[in-house]
């Protein structure tokens, strides 16, 4: 467990100290210039908010993991999550089919919310990681890069893959009571996509993106 490195700011900021502000409580802090944020997380001493996460995953690794998660997500959305044999009729269910049926029934708001949180948000989040990482790796700085990094950070909040997985387990238990259910390969890809994107959310350092962006 890494220890917090921040100290509360005094009125005079010594040289070779970096000023930081807690985004949660606006506390002004200072850390030594030798602070290595790749090894130590930074916790606000007042509100205990994690100001900087530990970890400094390189852009190449981020892009590779995001690409794998994206492929898994696309496969999971287009292939059956489960197959279900009920009263002689053979049924399959996929994520996209379920949301499209809700839209067909006229429930645009419900279907739109489900598709936003289970597909669009994680898809855009992973795509933006790939695009932004490649831009920073190849030292390109298109005019939309700052906005793109900003959206990447916010889209993670709307990605609800873990909630969908729990929803799937509940549906599975309900259906098992009725008939024979076979779990499709789609759900395994969905679970893999969830694990990879969770790993990215916890390991990506926003500071690394912005400091690399500002360097060039």
């Amino acid at each position, binding site marked *: 467990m890494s220890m917090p490195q921040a100290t509360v*700011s005094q009125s005079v900021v010594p040289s070779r100290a970096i000023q930081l*502000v807690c985004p949660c409580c*606006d506390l002004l802090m200072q850390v030594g210039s030798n602070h290595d944020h790749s090894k130590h997380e930074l916790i606000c001493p007042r*509100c205990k908010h994690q100001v900087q996460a530990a970890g400094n995953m390189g852009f190449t690794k981020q892009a590779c993991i995001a690409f794998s998660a994206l492929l898994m997500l696309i496969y999971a959305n287009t292939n059956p999550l489960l197959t279900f044999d009920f*009263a002689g009729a053979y049924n399959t*269910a*996929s994520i996209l089919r379920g949301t499209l049926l809700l839209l067909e029934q006229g429930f645009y708001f419900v279907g739109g919310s489900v598709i936003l949180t289970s597909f669009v948000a994680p898809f855009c989040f992973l795509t933006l990681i790939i695009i932004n990482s490649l831009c920073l790796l190849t030292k390109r700085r298109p005019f939309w890069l700052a906005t793109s990094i900003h959206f990447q950070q916010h889209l993670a909040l709307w990605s609800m893959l873990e909630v969908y997985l729990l929803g799937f387990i509940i549906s599975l*238990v309900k259906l098992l009571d009725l008939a024979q259910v076979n779990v499709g390969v789609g759900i395994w890809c969905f679970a893999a996509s969830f694990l990879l994107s969770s790993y990215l959310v916890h390991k990506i350092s926003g500071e690394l993106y912005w400091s690399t962006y500002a360097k060039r």
Partner: protein
Amino acid sequence: MQSARSQGLAQCQHCHWVQAISKTNCERCHLTIEVRIKHSEQRCWAFLLTAFVFMFPANLLPITILSSIGAPQPETIISGVFSLIDSDMEIIAVIVFVASIVVPAIKIIGLALILISLQLRLHLNNSQRIFIYRFVDVIGKWSMIDLFVLSIMVAVFQYNDLVGVVAGFGATAFTAVVLLTIAAAKSFDTRLIWDKCLD
């Protein structure tokens, strides 16, 4: 302990760069700086009250309509929980009850409590306020479970001639409650807790 604003400093909400409060655009990412979320309390109240109003149709109107050989059977959230208990699926019933009824209610009550305590200066310390906020923020998205179950069930029975599942208007109201409470939590600026009440 000093806040950045009292020292004439502001943090960019996008890249977290610290700079003089007079800047309108960040020196590092060039995006617009907002020292505090504008009209944070009013927006939070607006989202909360709208969510509270939608709680009634979400819980009273059917969320799913099960059509089998007999008459269509409309099912509200709470009747769905009772039918799960009747089918000996108590654990699932508890998960659905907590995610669909308890969590939205806790979110509305928790955020309202923070706002009222700030506006009326009630006896709550800042650690308790931020604990309530973080709890509300973390549990927020788990209410979506019922909607995901609905979308899976609709897909499963799409080609079945004996049983059909369609969404009811309660589902629309419930989606509104979930999204409005998430929006309320996101529109609340936690820095106001320390701006208003310095422990």
